């Protein structure tokens, strides 16, 4: 922290969160273990950094309402994220939380140059997933014309995009790409649309994917970040400078290394977040499992505070191939930098004998297809070499026909790990 006064304000905010979580028996017990009985026991950021981390496992142990800090009559909404195994994790919101969230999202959209002049088509899923409703309330607070179409039903998306004069599309990057492809197929020309910006998140994506989407849709793409355990989308978002995602002041970020020690500014590690001024579901040092870096400063858009880099990878997405850590986003980066193939891919991991084998399936691009097998083999080995340069492991690249890799209307599923189960 650069300034004393801001540090003091931050500490007060964190103390309030500690005070709030001390009302929850589970946190109370964990804090008592290290001798913290009241918020006043935290007198500095160093004190704060000694507090225990919270993980998704803690949320599961307290399923469904064990970590709520308010009685049920004050809670007006629930969201939940699907667990890959067993029960989902459930979060609650008071009316104050809902309004705070909407304001935070509206601020983010405003910094992206979006206003009440815009028509925002929200193609994130609505429901227990926070994506749709999170963007929805923020868009309304902004005063934009909000189209709650939700995910899927692609032909209808295209029709309304034309008929309503949609200017901003909000969805996952993989769905944005699918919509772009569907527009091409339907023969809808760019000038029949008023689309100018896209707000994309809920899955890690690369800079190459951004260029691809921007090029195909003819828009400016903004990265939005969030997770339901913290609040939902809007925890951080890019402004028009596109120099990382500004973290809203209601979230205190830390970056920790694998041992849980703080990383110096600019060093990549796991993002850990503490909520400030959130009522129903305060989180204390929540491990997001997202890998990124942080820096503190001012931006020309008016934001002052922490800015994070785009999330390059999720700890949970990491594949260990013959002992080497590989992230799907690295493969995406490699594929997009080579060209000649479509930005759709599927990773299939198998154990052959005692060795892990990673097969990367990627679609041949019909515009660059040439008739000679030799050329196809050259393309295949270019992709393979690039992946090996970036990840350090040897892979098998398999060229497949266009549209043969399943398209996603929400979060894309890009890994098939046959070693499991």
């Amino acid at each position: 922290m650069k300034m004393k006064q801001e540090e003091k304000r931050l500490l007060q905010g964190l103390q309030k969160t500690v005070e709030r979580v001390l009302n929850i028996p589970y946190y109370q017990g964990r804090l008592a273990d290290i001798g913290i009985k009241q918020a006043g026991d935290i007198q500095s950021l160093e004190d704060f950094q000694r507090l225990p981390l919270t993980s998704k496992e803690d949320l599961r142990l307290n399923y469904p309402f064990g970590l709520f800090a308010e009685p049920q009559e004050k809670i007006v909404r629930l969201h939940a994220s699907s667990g890959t195994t067993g029960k989902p994790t459930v979060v609650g919101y008071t009316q104050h939380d809902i309004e705070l969230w909407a304001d935070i999202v509206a601020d983010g959209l405003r910094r992206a140059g979006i206003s009440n002049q815009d028509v925002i088509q929200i193609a994130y899923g609505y429901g227990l997933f926070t994506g749709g409703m999170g963007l929805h309330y923020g868009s309304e607070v902004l005063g934009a014309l909000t189209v709650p179409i939700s995910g899927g039903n692609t032909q209808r998306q295209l029709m309304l995009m034309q008929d309503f004069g949609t200017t901003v599309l909000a969805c996952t990057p993989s769905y944005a790409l699918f919509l772009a492809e569907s527009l091409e197929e339907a023969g809808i020309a760019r000038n029949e649309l008023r689309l100018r910006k896209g707000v994309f998140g809920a899955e890690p994506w690369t800079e190459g994917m951004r260029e691809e989407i921007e090029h195909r849709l003819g828009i400016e793409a903004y990265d939005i970040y969030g997770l339901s355990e913290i609040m939902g989308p809007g925890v951080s978002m890019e402004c028009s400078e596109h120099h990382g995602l500004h973290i809203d002041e209601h979230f205190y970020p830390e970056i920790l290394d694998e041992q849980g020690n703080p990383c110096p500014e600019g060093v990549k590690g796991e993002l850990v977040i503490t909520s400030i001024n959130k009522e129903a579901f305060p989180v204390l040092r929540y491990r997001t499992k997202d890998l990124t870096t942080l820096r503190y400063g001012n931006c020309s858009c008016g934001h002052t505070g922490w800015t994070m880099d785009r999330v390059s990878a999720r700890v949970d997405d990491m594949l260990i191939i013959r002992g080497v850590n590989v992230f799907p986003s690295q493969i995406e980066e490699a594929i997009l930098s080579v060209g000649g193939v479509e930005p759709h891919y599927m990773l299939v991991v198998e154990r052959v004998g005692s060795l892990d084998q990673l097969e990367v399936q990627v679609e041949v691009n019909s515009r660059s297809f040439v008739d000679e097998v030799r050329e196809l083999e050259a393309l295949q080995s270019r992709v393979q070499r690039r992946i090996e340069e970036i990840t350090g492991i040897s892979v098998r690249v398999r060229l497949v026909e266009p549209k043969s890799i399943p398209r996603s209307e929400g979060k894309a599923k890009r890994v098939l790990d046959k070693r499991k189960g």
Partner: protein
Amino acid sequence: MFQLSIFLENTKGRLAEVLNLLTQLNVNIRALSLADTKDYGVLRIVVDEPEKVAEAMRVREYVVNLTPVWVLRVPDRVGGLAGVLTQLADEGVVVEYMYAFVEKENEKAQVVIRVQNEQVMAAAMQKLALA
């Protein structure tokens, strides 16, 4: 003239699927060849109205390319093909690949040739009066 080159994954029944589609589209395949690797192959066919067929296949999500090729009638005697190829090589023509077929009406053997350089081939064809 142009041949159709179609990218195909080496999956079971894929080739039959394409051939069935061509039948549905009422396309008469005059010549055919398949170059393949373990994972995929390129199906090359000579048909009437190649542009129209290519478009119909693209609509159905096939990766299709129109590739310029030359069709030569081969003299019906021992060493006929070798003779033609030697003449072409002497004119600097580099053959990428070729495949033979027999025209139904006259049962004459013909070859489809893909060359590296179209201009060199055109000049050779004219000079050797093969066209």
